[in-house]
């Protein structure tokens, strides 16, 4: 017994109590308690509060370890890691070879990097995309401020609050507008279409992308575009978004009074920048009031040449010349002006803005060629594209125009210089008064400290983009007729009855002028007497035996769409739809023009695969509760009947992406799915493995994955089938993911229990 224990026992006499009833106190506790506190404070080496602190630290470290483990696992399960396993084994066994290779590598390194200084830790590069195949999300580590760059202090960095109270829609045809967009990620096309629809005046759309296949998907996304012309051009992956906009579409500017520059940016540099694209889109074309305000400013101020967005707050402290000044200076000289490194700098980071075509003339007149731009090598700085991005406002001024920045105040918490402009006259006065000039800055001095990093965007901004992705509020809920499909296979009658009851309630809340319907088919041998008496809104199809999950749903879908359904939602009978789930699913589908597959959120235990916290994109969607529009069904044909059960939803998802559809998780649509604490029987494993093998062969998975599935099958006594299905077209295979086992997507967490 320790000294501490002896002391405590003396205070309480607690080792054996004579007069106690089990579970109850009988002595006056107050005095004993006070003494115990005093004694324990004297004796304690570690206070309870310290324990709390340690536990918190431990929690933080555990999260970091889990993150690193996830990264390690991603490597370990990657095809590359598997493919190189023999080589690693060889090197392990043969140390001499290993030493030789290491020595050679060191020699080569010295050869190409003589006397190389230590590489400084560089901040995430703000002004470019990583135009390389999809990379894992960047580490969201602590932000490292760069050296002081000559931008304005936030409190002097003036911008105009949107929307303007006096802005009004302008009749179409008064001017010609072009949206010039580079889409490296073609699946973003429909997101851009939604925003461009906010330009009531009409807009001709010019989009560049990287391949004919992607171009076909972009064209499909803009089918039926009423706002003007649509032209998609295939470009080399060179010059990021800048070369396509200024070189490939150079002919567009003369035909249009105003241009809107956008591009499908995805930032992998840091998680805090993940919604940067949405920030730019919301700021420049977020809604009709924003668009009318910006175009209204051009109308009221003929000297206004460009309108950019006030800087995204998490981005601000990274902005600057970087390693681009000398290249910028060279370009400036060619345009006819000089740059002063000590003067104020500003530029539309992200290269998205509105402009008069004439304001870009100095850059267009450079007559650049795509070949002038640096070959793509994942550069983070120093390319011609980086230089041009920093010169847009300079070029605008050199062309004789002014520029300004706009801001939606709810998107900012650390940017005090946002001003309301009550009248058109006030706008002209504001432009004349504010020294928003770079070429003759009137003695304005740049900031002398780096702004404090802002670690997250505002809650209002996050809510805005989430509601945009969710389709909230939905302007046309009446134009829908929702169908729910249940495929039953020997489910307990009570379970089916509850699922049907929940589906009927959810249908009643789903919206739409026409009543929704429930479609049921029984793949099992039991009679359908198990169905509840309520038949009015239920269509029970004649059974065709156990044809499989996907085939049965295809029958139901075909029937539902033939009877006028606009949307069909698969519902597993071992789950319960939340009463508002169907409404949320269809709201989201309609918001994306029905060119989307939307899955419900599995609840209470979620599927571990990733989905984006801002736009809710996900690599594949589960068939457990999945909404398809008639458009999506027409484009995909529904499930592939050759899958009996399992993985048909993964296959459908990948085919949907290859057809230009988006995949979304709807976190507002909750589907209570009973998947926890279930025993997995060998027959189930057989179906899973067979389907996974079929999927692997259809999508030309790496040999290592197919071998892994084969080993799994053999481990439970299965023969590996020899037949190989017709593989999908080569261009589709970019959407398949065989690097994450049966998750078929990066997981949010690794193990579930």
């Amino acid at each position: 017994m320790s000294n501490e224990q002896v002391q405590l026992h003396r205070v309480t006499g607690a080792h054996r109590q004579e007069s106690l009833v089990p579970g109850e106190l009988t002595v006056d506790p107050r005095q004993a308690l006070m003494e115990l506190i005093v004694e324990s404070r004297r004796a304690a080496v570690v206070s309870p509060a310290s324990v709390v602190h340690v536990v918190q630290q431990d929690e933080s470290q555990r999260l970091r370890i889990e993150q690193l483990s996830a990264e390690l696992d991603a490597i370990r399960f990657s095809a590359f890691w598997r493919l190189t396993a023999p080589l690693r084994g060889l090197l392990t066994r043969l140390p001499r070879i290993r030493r030789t290779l290491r020595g050679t590598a060191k020699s080569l390194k010295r050869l190409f990097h003589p006397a190389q200084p230590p590489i400084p830790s560089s901040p995430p590069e703000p002004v470019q995309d990583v135009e390389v195949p999809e990379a894992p999300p960047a580490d969201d580590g602590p932000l490292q401020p760069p050296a002081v760059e000559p931008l304005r202090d936030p409190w002097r960095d003036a911008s105009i609050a949107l929307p303007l109270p006096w802005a009004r829609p302008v009749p179409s045809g008064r001017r010609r507008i072009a949206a010039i967009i580079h889409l490296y990620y073609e699946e973003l096309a429909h997101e851009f279409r939604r925003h461009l629809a906010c330009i009531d005046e009409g807009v001709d759309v010019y989009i560049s992308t990287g391949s004919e296949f992607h171009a076909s998907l972009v064209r499909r996304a803009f089918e039926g575009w009423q706002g003007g012309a649509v032209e998609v051009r295939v470009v080399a992956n060179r010059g990021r978004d800048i070369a396509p906009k200024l070189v490939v579409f150079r002919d567009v500017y003369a035909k249009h009074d105003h241009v809107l520059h956008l591009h499908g940016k995805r930032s992998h540099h840091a998680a805090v920048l993940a919604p940067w694209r949405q920030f730019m889109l919301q700021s420049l074309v977020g809604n009709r009031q924003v668009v009318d305000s910006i175009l209204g400013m051009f109308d009221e101020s003929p000297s206004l040449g460009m309108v950019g967005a006030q800087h995204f707050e998490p981005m601000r402290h990274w902005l600057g010349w970087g390693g681009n000044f000398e290249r910028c200076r060279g370009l400036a000289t060619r345009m006819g002006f000089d740059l002063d490194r000590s003067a104020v700098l500003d530029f539309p980071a992200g290269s998205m803005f509105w402009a008069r075509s004439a304001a870009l003339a100095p850059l267009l007149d450079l007559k650049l060629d795509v070949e002038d731009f640096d070959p793509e090598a994942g550069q983070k700085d120093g390319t011609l594209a980086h230089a041009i991005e920093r010169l847009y406002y300079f070029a605008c001024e050199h062309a004789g125009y002014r520029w300004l920045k706009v801001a939606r105040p709810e998107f900012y918490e650390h940017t005090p210089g946002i001003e309301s402009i009550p009248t058109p006259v006030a706008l002209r006065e504001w432009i004349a008064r504010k020294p928003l000039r770079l070429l003759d800055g009137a003695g304005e001095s740049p900031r002398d400290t780096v702004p404090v990093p802002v670690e997250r965007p505002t809650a209002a901004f996050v809510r805005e983009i989430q509601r945009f992705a969710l389709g909230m509020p939905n302007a046309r809920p009446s134009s829908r007729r929702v169908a729910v499909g249940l495929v039953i296979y020997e489910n307990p009658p009570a379970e089916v009855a509850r699922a049907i009851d929940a589906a009927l309630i959810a249908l009643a809340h789903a919206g739409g002028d026409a009543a929704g319907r429930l479609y049921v088919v029984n793949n099992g041998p039991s009679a359908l007497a198990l169905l509840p008496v309520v038949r009015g809104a239920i269509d029970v199809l004649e059974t065709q035996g156990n044809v499989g999950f996907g085939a049965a749903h295809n029958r139901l879908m075909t029937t539902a769409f033939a009877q006028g359904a606009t949307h069909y939602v698969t519902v597993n009978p071992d789950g319960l739809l939340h009463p508002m789930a169907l409404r949320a699913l269809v709201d989201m589908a309609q918001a994306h023009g029905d060119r989307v597959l939307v899955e419900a959120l599995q609840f209470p235990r979620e599927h571990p695969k990733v989905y984006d916290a801002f736009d809710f994109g996900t690599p594949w969607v589960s068939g457990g509760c999945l909404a398809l529009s008639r458009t999506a069904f027409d484009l995909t044909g529904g499930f592939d009947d050759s899958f009996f059960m399992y993985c048909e939803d993964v296959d459908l998802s990948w085919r949907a992406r290859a057809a230009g559809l988006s995949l979304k998780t709807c976190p507002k649509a909750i589907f209570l799915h009973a998947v926890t604490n279930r025993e997995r029987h060998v027959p189930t494993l057989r179906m899973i493995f067979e389907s996974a093998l079929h999927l692997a062969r259809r999508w030309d998975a790496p040999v290592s994955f197919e071998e892994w599935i084969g080993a799994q099958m053999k481990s439970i006594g299965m023969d590996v089938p020899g037949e190989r299905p017709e593989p999908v077209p080569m261009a589709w295979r970019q959407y398949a993911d065989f690097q994450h086992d049966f998750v078929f997507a990066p997981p949010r967490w690794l193990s579930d229990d």
Partner: protein
Amino acid sequence: MIEDQVDCIVRLHDSRRLLELERCVFSLVGQRHERVHIILATQRFSADEIAGVRAALAPVLALAGAPTLTVANWESATPADARTELLNLGLAAVTGRYVSFLDYDDTLFPEAYELLLARLKTTRAAIAFASVRTVRADVHADFVYVSSHPKPPFAGRGLLDLMRGNFCPIHSYLIDRARLPDGVLRFDTSLVWEEDYDLLLRICACKPADFQALHHVIGDYYFKTDGSNSIWTDDVLSESKKIAYEQVAARIEMRRRLTRVSLEVQRTLLDECEVDARLTLRGLLDLCASHPDDAL
């Protein structure tokens, strides 16, 4: 006492947290065990707020087989934080044989009560335990985003581990009221933290407990990034709370030292020769620490 009914006491102290409450209740709607009665214990809600709560829950409670709902409102102006009083308020409203607890922001898996009831019905235990996971989540206006799944911070193997420290979150167990002596099933209102642990110590000191379902995860414990959890937040580390927490820890230790372990419980852990009617929880722990087999 309604024989097959599980009463679930759900605490709610903020009428703005209806999104999380509705998820919590929906997880109860999904229970395979059919007879569930929810007792929603609210802290000083106005009539309008209570009406708002009922309206928010009405759609999910309209589902077939959904639990019944009783709202019990703590009206008194004191204490400021009536979290423990809310639990007793809920207990005063129970009518079923079985009772459980669930905070408004946590969830249970569909088989949770079915599994725990099976343990209670096949043993002599007055309380049966399973496990819950922790999930890290961002609470947004329209939904909850689960960003990761940290490893469970709660680790324990059975009764002795529970006596050493609480590894059993409040929704990880089910209590059989019929097997408890009168007076045990109430919370000590002088505790604002660890009130549930204090109850567990008293229950487990007097009646057998079942831990055989610990390897089953039956629900989620939400660690929320908005800091709205009542524990493990920065707020806990304020000076006043440090002191309060020290006092609570001392109270818990005193509970161990002053609470006698029943012979029935001792016999689940000790040889007959070691059984002693005067043994306290602390004494039992000390005795078992010196025991060659501490795997109990």
